[in-house]
């Protein structure tokens, strides 16, 4: 029982996913992971030497304690993304892949056509696909139709820390989705993550906002609390907004 996040054939207690890029050291990244309570961490295949799991970031990640989700960062088209995913699988990772197809190396915005194409191939090959995508409600439905396990719309451009500038589209995506919605990029502050969760997002993926913070572990903890608070608020519901005052201790009947 309990409020679990179900993706594919797995369940997670935490709704906080964390990235590994831009940290000052592997040790600080590991501390952040520890305090975040995250159960899924994403790793760029291009950044790690999969033949040497004791090197780079991988040496501080224990696959028994954390689910390592490889990503296709660096892929500019579907072919490259598929090749990376298959390479990671051959190297012993699971068949889960965070699909990132970003032809523009500057803004790293996802290519919708190539993402759909890659998702189709990967799903057919038995992968559990978690696609990074622009906050486009039609694209979200198309990716769901292709068999993606979640959709991962961006809140604002990746690394920008600008929060949920795509909030209106995100609300539509959440309203229409039959698969978990994970807000992937642009979340800059814990309050952004809290808002995303209050809106009904199923999880948040956060990286730059933590790795670039002056005290990353403290910020990671703040995000954990914000995501939990947002989730609780979503489940608990909120009272309606009104233009008039209502006393918190009702006085109806006293004058009668």
């Amino acid at each position, binding site marked *: 029982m309990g409020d679990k996040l179900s993706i594919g054939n797995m369940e997670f207690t935490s709704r906080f996913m964390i990235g590994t890029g831009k940290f000052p050291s592997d040790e600080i990244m590991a501390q952040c992971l520890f305090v975040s309570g995250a159960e899924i961490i994403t790793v760029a*295949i291009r950044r790690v030497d999969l033949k040497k799991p004791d090197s780079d970031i991988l040496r501080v990640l224990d696959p028994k304690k954390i689910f390592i989700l490889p990503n296709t960062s660096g892929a500019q088209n579907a072919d490259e993304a598929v090749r990376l995913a298959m390479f990671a699988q051959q190297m012993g990772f699971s068949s889960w892949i965070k699909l990132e197809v970003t032809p523009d190396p500057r803004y790293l915005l996802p290519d919708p056509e190539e993402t759909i194409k890659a998702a189709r191939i990967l799903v057919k090959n038995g992968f559990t696909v978690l696609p990074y995508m622009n906050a486009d409600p039609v694209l979200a439905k198309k990716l769901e139709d292709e068999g993606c396990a979640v959709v991962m719309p961006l809140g604002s451009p990746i690394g920008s820390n600008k929060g949920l500038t795509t909030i209106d589209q995100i609300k539509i995506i959440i309203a229409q989705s039959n698969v978990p919605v994970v807000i992937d990029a642009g979340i800059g502050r814990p309050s952004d993550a809290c808002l995303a969760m209050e809106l009904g997002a199923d999880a948040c993926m956060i990286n730059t906002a933590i790795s*670039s913070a002056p005290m990353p572990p403290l910020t990671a903890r703040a995000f954990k609390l914000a995501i939990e608070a947002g989730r609780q608020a979503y489940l608990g519901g909120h009272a309606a907004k009104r233009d008039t005052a209502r006393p918190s201790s009702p006085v109806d009947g006293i004058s009668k």
Partner: protein
Amino acid sequence: MKTFYDEMLKTNEINVGRLTENINGDLVMRALEKDGMSFNDMLCLLSERALLHIDILASRAKEMTDTHFGKNINLYIPLYLSNECSNSCSYCGFNVNAVIPRNTLTIAEAEIEMKRIAATGMKNILLLTGEAPAKAGVGYMEHVIKIASLYFTQISLEVYPMDIPEYERLVKAGATGLVIYQETYDETLYAKLHETGPKKNFRYRLEAPERAAQAGFRFIGIGALLGLSEWRKEAALMFSHAKYLSKKYWRSDIALSFPRITPARGCKTEIAPVSETELRQMIFTARIYLEHAVINLSTRESAVFRDSMIGFGVTRLSAGSKTNPGGYEIHPEASGEQFMVNDTRTVEEVTLFISERGYYPVFKDWDISLNEKIK
């Protein structure tokens, strides 16, 4: 098809010199505060006046570096394959008239050097030659790249300019990056400095990055040799070139280098020295104007200077470099080098310093499986 050459002619008309001289403090501050910086705003930051605000430039550059690159510093290492050259660039240690031991590594020798380099942990290699197609041409480079693919995950080239089909062969062989310095963006000066040899064709060299991008190179590096001409004008044109390339060839990553040259042996070219402060101003401006560009700083610069620039615009450092063919293992005694290395620290020492500074030294930032299948 229009190229950067056409853009450059327009920029020349603006008279970069006059613009940079007539800039006051207000214009500098306004440029710094602006989103979506224009070419003229960039000139404000390059102006003499902006030197008075260099601390503000530094903090803005740091903020932007942190935002886009985080606490990461990428590492690469050069491997000089040949110092044979048919050009007569008098400022260059490899020029055809320089009396130096000439050498082109055989494929077997290149592999020995690579093994030695790979043992340092380096994954990103830059392969360099002079301009001697008969000795170190496309076929030779294809062969060397294939060998390099066994030891490194990212292979860049700094070779003479080529046509698109030749570049395509090198991409197919496994190269991902192409570096080519324009030397100077001043066409008249260029003609004086390159009187003989194939390099005298200014436009062919200027358009090489565009041919490289069309051929499929993912990383394009450009630069001007600082010291040949008035640096502010060179920097403005180089930044304009980078902006043009990033807009037109939007799939390619653009990198900038800032080589300050020192007179080579027997150099007849008058060098206009660029100070460290001026170099800082140039790098800060590059970061602010070209927020996503990779910025390299090679071992031409001193350890002290390089260390001080970590995170302040600079995102990639070379380390443990030797600049003569065979310098790592075959001919460890330094001779026939292109330039003197100032930062002589080992890869391990540089890596340690980066970590102590609170940054992550990144060795691997590319996977060979992203490349086209190697044929």
